[in-house]
């Protein structure tokens, strides 16, 4: 660039950096315009990790405030913004993108396809999710418009009416919240459509529905739930915008509108959403446990049936979030029944994972350790779920810290642990390098200890009458010590996550080369190189069983003889 005609001082030093920035820009440009499912998957994951740090920081600030009674670390206004942003961020901009990211990366590889069914729709979905997150966080800058300082939404992540009405929520922070969810919801619906079309129409030869890896099955079910869950959310957000901008009365209790109907609409989305997140977690566990137990998945058809069953039932349980709104007794009883019924297919799943481990030769690599912790924690989460499904018990526990502990047990103890397992399992495929096992064990134990310190003891203040979403509490309620322990646990979790991030960065540059099949696994993604080439497979594979690589490695005793 710098020619002889420009002998300006410093130009020589500038030249390489200019070239560097050009190359850097080109790389960015390539990633921005990509429609490759692997790159989009990685971007989803990276985006989610970024927001995980942001949402985690918000949680930490809240835990510091709650460590002692009558603390003044955060003002009530800031605290209310923190829990709203924490919840919204973690559900919509961490959990959803990260499961979409893994699904995006893995589904085509595992069904022997070269890309998703609609690559451009895939890119569109990703970028809608990105813009949704940016809109949400722009509220910190632009939220209150005329009042100078910005302000984020403070209506809670389920934003009950009429707190979201213009009478109670002035300024624009709630508008950013609604728009962010509307925009990212459209992206999610696009992703759902894409997953369904990919899994139904892009499977390689021989991969009948009954021979798909469980991960593909579970992502298919998840995608159907996205279609039926995100629609109501989108509709509800449109109604909220109509109320706020066009003077509508959907949730205007002064004009005869109903606050309860918002709750119904939100939870018709909200409960299936839990399964949108947890079914992919089941999917990771269902891939990892067999490989590290060295056995085929026990009861594959039962697992598929249980997944479909959970999805169906999950569409009819939403009002268990509303046992305290004064539904008639038969209404409450109905939702008690449907909610408890979810326990049956969930139990079947847990037993099938146990059945897979039974009689195996379990290798305690880091992915498997996370999966075993997942099983243990998900069991407890399920049991506290049964307690909350018992409507009378829920009249005490609803909206208390017991509920907060319960759903963090599901989301952190269940989903996040499965995700960490998935990172350790598939990182070698994504980057070509192994994550360090020793650092992984540090990550595992630090996070496990932190998780149990925080969320085991969080149940107690709930039982002692502590409601959620309070920025302060008075001493003498017996809540102090439990809250302090919860806060201490957070710092162990932070340490664990720091080790994890360090491990990823270090291993990306200096990790042991992985080869194409480091775990001696059985599904198609391990048949191609790590990382896979742009078109995944030089020759599109043909399969005869659920474990094509087992057939290849054991030609004397292939699976297809038994299936």
């Amino acid at each position, binding site marked *: 660039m710098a020619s002889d005609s420009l002998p300006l001082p410093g130009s020589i030093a500038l030249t390489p950096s200019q070239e560097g920035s050009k190359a850097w820009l080109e790389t960015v440009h390539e990633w921005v315009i990509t429609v490759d499912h692997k790159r989009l998957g990685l971007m989803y994951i990276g985006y989610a990790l970024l927001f995980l740090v942001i949402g985690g920081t918000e949680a930490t600030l809240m835990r510091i405030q709650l460590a002692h009674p009558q603390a003044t670390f955060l003002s009530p*206004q800031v605290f*209310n913004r923190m829990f709203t942003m924490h919840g919204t961020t973690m559900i919509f901009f961490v959990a959803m993108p990260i499961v979409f990211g893994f699904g995006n990366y893995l589904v085509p590889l595992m069904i022997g396809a070269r890309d998703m069914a609609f690559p451009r729709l895939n890119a569109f979905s990703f970028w809608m999710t990105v813009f949704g997150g940016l809109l949400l966080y722009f509220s910190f800058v632009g939220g209150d418009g005329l009042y100078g300082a910005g302000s984020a939404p*403070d209506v809670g992540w389920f934003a*009950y009416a*009429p*707190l979201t009405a213009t009478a*109670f929520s002035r300024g624009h922070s709630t508008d950013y919240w609604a728009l962010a969810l509307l925009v990212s919801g459209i992206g999610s619906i696009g992703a759902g459509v894409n997953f369904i079309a990919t899994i139904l129409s892009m499977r390689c030869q021989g991969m009948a529905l009954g021979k798909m890896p469980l991960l593909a099955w579970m992502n298919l079910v998840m995608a159907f739930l996205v279609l039926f869950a995100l629609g109501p959310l989108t509709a509800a957000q449109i109604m909220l915008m109509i109320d706020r901008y066009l003077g509508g009365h959907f949730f205007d209790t002064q004009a*005869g509108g109903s*606050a*309860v109907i918002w709750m119904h609409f939100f939870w018709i989305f909200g409960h299936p959403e839990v399964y949108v997140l947890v079914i992919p977690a089941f999917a990771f566990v269902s891939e990892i446990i067999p490989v590290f*137990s060295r*056995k085929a998945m*026990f*009861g594959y*058809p*039962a697992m598929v049936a249980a997944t479909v069953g959970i999805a169906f039932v999950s569409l009819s349980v939403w009002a268990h979030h509303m046992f*305290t*709104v*004064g539904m008639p*007794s038969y209404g*409450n*009883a109905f939702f*008690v*029944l449907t909610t*408890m019924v979810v*326990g*049956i297919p969930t139990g*079947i799943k*847990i037993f099938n994972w146990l*059945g897979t481990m*039974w*009689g195996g*030769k379990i*290798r*305690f690599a880091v992915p498997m350790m996370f999966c*075993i912790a997942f099983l243990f924690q998900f069991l407890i989460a399920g049991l*506290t779920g049964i*307690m909350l499904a*018992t*409507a*009378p*018990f829920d*009249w*005490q526990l*609803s*909206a208390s810290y017991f509920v907060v502990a319960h759903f963090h047990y599901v989301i952190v103890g269940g989903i996040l642990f499965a995700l960490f397992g998935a990172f350790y399992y598939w990182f070698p495929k994504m980057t070509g390098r192994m994550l360090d096992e020793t650092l992984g064990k540090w990550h595992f134990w630090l996070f496990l200890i932190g998780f149990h310190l925080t969320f085991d003891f969080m149940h107690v203040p709930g039982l*002692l*009458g*502590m*409601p*959620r*979403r*309070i920025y302060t509490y008075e001493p*003498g*309620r*017996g809540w*102090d*010590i439990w809250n302090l322990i919860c806060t201490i646990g957070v710092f162990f979790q932070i340490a664990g996550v720091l080790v994890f991030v360090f491990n990823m960065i270090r291993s990306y540059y200096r990790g042991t080369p992985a080869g194409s099949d480091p775990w001696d696994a059985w599904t198609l993604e391990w048949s191609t190189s790590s990382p896979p080439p742009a078109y995944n497979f030089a020759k599109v594979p043909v399969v005869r069983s659920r474990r094509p690589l087992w057939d290849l490695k*054991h030609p004397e005793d292939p699976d297809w003889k*038994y299936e």
Partner: protein
Amino acid sequence: MQSRGQKLESSPKRQPAWQVAAALLYAAATALAGPGNGSASPTSVFAPGSTPAHSIYDISIFVLEISAAIFVVVAGLLAYAVVKFRQRRSDDETEPSQVYGSNQIEMAWTVIPVLIVVVLFLSTAQVIHRVEDARRPPGAIDVTVVGHQFWWEYRYPQFGFTSANELHVPVSNASDAMPTFLTLLSADTDHSFWVPRLAGKTDLIPNRTNKTWVNPEQPGLYLGQCSQYCGTQHALMLLRVYVQPREEFDRWVREQQQPATLDPSVAEGRRVFETTACINCHTVRGTVADGRFGPDLTHLMSRETLASGIISNNAANLRLWIHDPDAIKPGSLMPAMNLSDPELDQVTAYLLTLH
């Protein structure tokens, strides 16, 4: 603040051994939790003092019992599998024998959970019916509870007066039942009425009428707080329920029915009160003040606390509260009235006469 007595002792009649053990564990836990003196939390759901809370307690213990059994079995199986089937150094490189599933086993672990669900559902439905569909006996007390950002309004339609933030109800025991039936309304956003020792929570939702009921067996102070996020000061919207013996309750009712005391010595304070915006929001019965947005102040000094239960009601706190509500409860909807110091003193003196 603490209400003592009647905690673990008031659990149901027959106590299986494990329940005693659980109670002991719980006692140990609460002892740890108490502020140094070993007293339990005044808001524990495991210390019921009223029929709805007792019914909930019983079903909770039953569900905990079943959950504990399931936990022991499944976690035991998991631990066994992890230990027994781990890869050992002595193992050769061969793969274990591949098992693809078993229909009999799948049936077994489907049927057992189904049975558990049936049992749990039937016992739950029974409790729902017993608590929610309880008939209001003729002698019951009615109170209309109106949730406001961020305080509680209590109307006693049978007695014709309104009070705020401190709910008084009579004791109700087996020989002399006098339950209190609460009608729950909201003036603005959603709230929830939760006094764990008396009953489960029920939401107060605008444009909707909800009901709940309590029949406390022992006199005393029962604490709770709003448990549905309702805005900035959701955290400091505390509930105080004073359960009084019948005669005491009747006396309190008679006092509350009186109009406000008119003490000529604080006429100046009353003039300031009645000529500023105070009366837009507050009622003092028997005077021109008839606002409805804020708490009824007719018998302000009969209450132990201010600002929805967060500070004790004395001259200094009252003065500070009038001067700058945000200093005590940031985000409270009561505005600072910008009164001069003498005016503040006069208004405080006036309010202090409202017994």
